[in-house]
């Protein structure tokens, strides 16, 4: 094996010290890039994600009081939400709050719909992320 350590900077050899060059850098430059924890990014995405009611594949359908999707115009059912709900709004609603722009009964129906979301429907990932424990 060859002795490679003699090439190492900063090593003392024969009484002389070869010091490694070091730049302190410019005042405006940066030597540090910080990476936020994945959890923080998850939280940010939870607040920004959206849940359409109903999902895009059945846009226009009504939501019955039990949260099921029924044909448009079904008596007693609620028309679709005009805008997708924000993750943060849904989080509040799941905790007993009310979705923005809804009546009490409409909110109940929408929340039931959201609780019944299945994998593959739009908004499910957002809903699932709202269920994740926070660190």
């Amino acid at each position: 094996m060859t002795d490679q350590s003699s090439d190492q900077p900063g090593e003392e050899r024969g009484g002389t010290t070869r010091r490694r060059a070091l730049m302190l850098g410019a005042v405006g430059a940066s030597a540090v890039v910080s990476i936020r924890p994945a959890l923080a990014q998850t939280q940010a995405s939870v607040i920004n994600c959206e849940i359409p009611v109903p999902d895009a594949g059945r846009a226009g359908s009504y939501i019955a009081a039990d949260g099921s999707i029924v044909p448009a115009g079904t008596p007693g059912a609620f028309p679709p939400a005009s805008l997708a709900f924000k993750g943060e709004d849904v989080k509040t609603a799941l905790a007993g709050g009310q979705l923005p722009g809804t009546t009490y009964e409409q909110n109940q129906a929408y929340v039931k719909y959201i609780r019944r979301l299945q994998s593959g429907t739009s908004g499910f990932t957002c809903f699932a992320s709202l269920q994740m424990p926070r660190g």
Partner: protein
Amino acid sequence: MAERLYRAVPADALRIVPLDDFTLIFHRPSGLSHLVTAPAPEILELLEQGPLTRAALLARLGERFELADASVEALDARLGELVATGLVEAA
């Protein structure tokens, strides 16, 4: 006014992984990771041995390395970054 002392957080609060030109530092208390380049790891290493004033740190760096651009302003900037990350505490 007494000069500020800079100290590194305890070594067991950090996980340091050298990656070629970069060094990845995981700060356990905050859960943050930092990608740092020279001279940040060198400064941290010196401060791990004990708290130093800015002047003493600059002198130590000068003893160990060939400082091509030794300036108090540049060292201040680097220390400021390390303090901002929580890797170094100023007292």
